[in-house]
């Protein structure tokens, strides 16, 4: 029984939060990796793109709520999501037309594009703060739990409860659907195939008559969708605060690099690697250990490897280890 209790505690405090967080990171890293694969630069504005998409979604959610439109037990934000994606896609296409296209035609060095993306980051950050402010916004509604800890205890008779928040379930399901759609798009459709060709070898792709402008536009739209979905899911699960989204840049980049920049499959794997390491290193294992070990060996301390304040250090250390030992990442990404 104790082993079961330990397992449930592990699922409740490590596995499920890690799975939800990993899905959010994976979606964010997919956006970064797509832009890197096609446009060949690290987009520092991605965190703020996520913040922008989430902000639009929140505003539309509030509007829906004021009109009495709900989504039953599910968060209303899911209904508002398409509006957020559309607005973000429009913003990114506009940014590309006004800013990035010039440097693309010039064939500017990737570092210059990174600095340009810093400027875009400033602008987006300013817009978001101007419209919604810097405060925490909580916009999750609908049913709070799929299973509460109490229900689980009466159902199974265990002393340890398992709670699954609706937002966690929504996160995992939505992320799964989004990734499935993205892979279907990249593997099966003509546009998706031309994107992969463009990513593999730009010159060859141009030679075979692929329209680069179209590829770039579709990339921005997909990146906008990924960023907005990732941002909204993160905001539902935790809360929305512009500065937190800027800080998400580090774990997202870590995920994309760990998986291999430019590789969509790698981005997903990287997202889960980063998320699970972060949760496992900062979780206090005392509870699990108390169930597993005999009473005489019960631990005194919290058995926490690092305090949660250092979660950045975890993604950073993994990033550095990967950079040193396998610079192209787990899935052999690009290394230009």
């Amino acid at each position, binding site marked *: 029984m104790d082993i079961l209790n330990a397992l449930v505690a592990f699922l409740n405090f490590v596995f499920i939060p890690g799975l939800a967080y990993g899905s959010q990171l994976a979606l964010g890293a997919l956006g970064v990796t797509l832009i890197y694969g096609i446009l060949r630069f690290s987009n520092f504005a991605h965190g703020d793109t996520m913040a922008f998409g989430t902000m639009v979604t929140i505003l539309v959610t509030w509007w829906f709520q004021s009109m009495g439109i709900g989504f039953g037990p599910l968060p209303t934000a899911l209904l508002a999501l398409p509006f957020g994606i559309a607005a973000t896609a429009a913003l990114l296409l506009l940014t590309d037309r006004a800013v990035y296209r010039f440097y693309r035609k010039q064939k500017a060095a990737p*570092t210059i594009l990174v600095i340009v993306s810093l400027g875009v980051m400033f602008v987006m950050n300013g817009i978001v703060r101007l419209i919604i402010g810097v405060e925490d916004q909580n916009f999750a509604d609908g049913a709070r739990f799929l299973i509460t800890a109490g229900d689980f205890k009466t159902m199974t008779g265990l002393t340890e409860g398992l709670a699954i928040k609706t937002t966690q379930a929504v996160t995992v399901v939505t992320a799964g659907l989004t990734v499935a759609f993205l892979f279907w798009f990249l593997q099966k459709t003509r546009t998706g195939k031309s994107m992969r060709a463009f990513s593999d070898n730009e010159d060859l792709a141009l030679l075979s008559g692929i329209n680069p402008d179209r590829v770039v536009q579709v990339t921005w739209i997909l990146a906008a969708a990924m960023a907005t979905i990732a941002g909204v899911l993160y905001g539902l699960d935790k809360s929305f605060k512009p500065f937190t989204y*800027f800080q998400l840049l580090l774990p997202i980049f870590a995920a994309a690099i760990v998986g291999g920049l430019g590789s969509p499959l790698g981005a997903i794997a990287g997202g889960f690697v980063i998320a699970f390491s972060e949760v496992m290193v900062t979780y206090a294992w005392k509870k699990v250990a108390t169930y597993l070990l005999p009473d005489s060996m019960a631990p005194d301390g919290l058995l926490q490897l690092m305090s949660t304040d250092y979660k950045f250090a975890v993604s950073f250390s993994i990033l550095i280890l990967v950079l040193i030992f396998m610079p192209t990442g787990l899935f052999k990404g690009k290394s230009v």
Partner: protein
Amino acid sequence: MSKNLYLFAGVVALFLFTGLVLTSWNQTLLILNFALVSSIMALGVNIQWGYAGLFNTGVMGFAALGGLAVVLVNSRPVPEAWSAGGFGILAGLALGALTIAATIFLRRRMVKGRARSLATVALLVGGFFLFRAVFDPAVDAVEAINPTIQGNLGGLGLPVLLAWPAGGLLAALAAWGIGKTALGLRSDYLAIATLGIAEIIVAVMKNEDWLARGVKMMDLKERPWPVPYEVSLQQNPRFLELAANWGFDPVSASSVVVKLCYMVMILIVLGLLIWLSERALNSPWGRMMRAIRDNEDAARAMGKDVTKKHLHIFILGSAVIGIAGAMLTSMDGILNPGTYQPLRFTFLIWVMVIVGGSGNNWGALLGGLLVGWLWLIVETLGPMVMGGITAGMAPGPLKSHLVDSAQHMRLLTMGIILLLVLRFSPRGLIPEK
């Protein structure tokens, strides 16, 4: 050159105009000192980016280390804390360093294979637990001592002027560590790695209370010689008489005098650093650096060790940023890790370098003064302007929201300026010669 003189004359006129028309002299000097210290940081970034093309987004971290150096050098030691756990903390840190050194040594000595990987992991895991076992009780003991005002080890109790070079040294040490691992990889990786290390440095400073009291903040009592206190000036009869003769009220006069003293000290450091960098830039060493930046392969073919040179310049630039960070903290008289924000400390400095002209030290200075002025003046004038714009609107939530959000306008402004300069004048206001 004459065009550059006009530009600097324009900046001087701008600050005079600010003092005479827009705000008080006190406020103007505050902006000027801020802009000058930021110029020194911009100089550091310019050394890295302009001379060698290294993309460092960790300015915030190096500046924070400079601030930490002020506490470590200047504040008084806490003897009880040292006897309670000082030795334990030092031993713990030494164990941690030893573990890393041993791992590196082991990896160099053993042949590649499963045995080496296992030994590495075992060494790191064992070292980590040993470190925690020694370090944690010592930290608890130190933080338990008089936690409302102390709870830290304190510093060396030395004059604060020594903290400025110490800040440079601390930043240089961190730069050596990060440069050893991230340099030689592709250019964006350095950017991401430095972004991360800066966040970690600030996280450590926020949470390690034994070091500098973390977010509980550290009040620094000492002032660097020869800068007096405002309060002691206000009690000095000779100063009061002088102020009265000139027709100033003593409170604002004292703070103007203190800021002027700081200004002189910053100008001395700034002048020294610009002189040194100009000398370096025009020496064979500077020519080699630019050659490496412009064509790494050619420089390599000439037998230059590019990665090693990059490491040197990365350390030098970071040290300059560390010095500026130490100056900023000693000027503020308080170390609050919560104020270290990447937008303000890293990306603003980048805007200064790009606007001023990368690769040119005078450009970094000009950019620092202009952008620093804009950054703070928008804070002062923004709500006023927004109030003027919305004066005709009926009072309500929308109007108050607009007035409140005016302070965020500056992020937008900075971003637009950066994008416009990159697009239409990518070499900046004073281009590289």
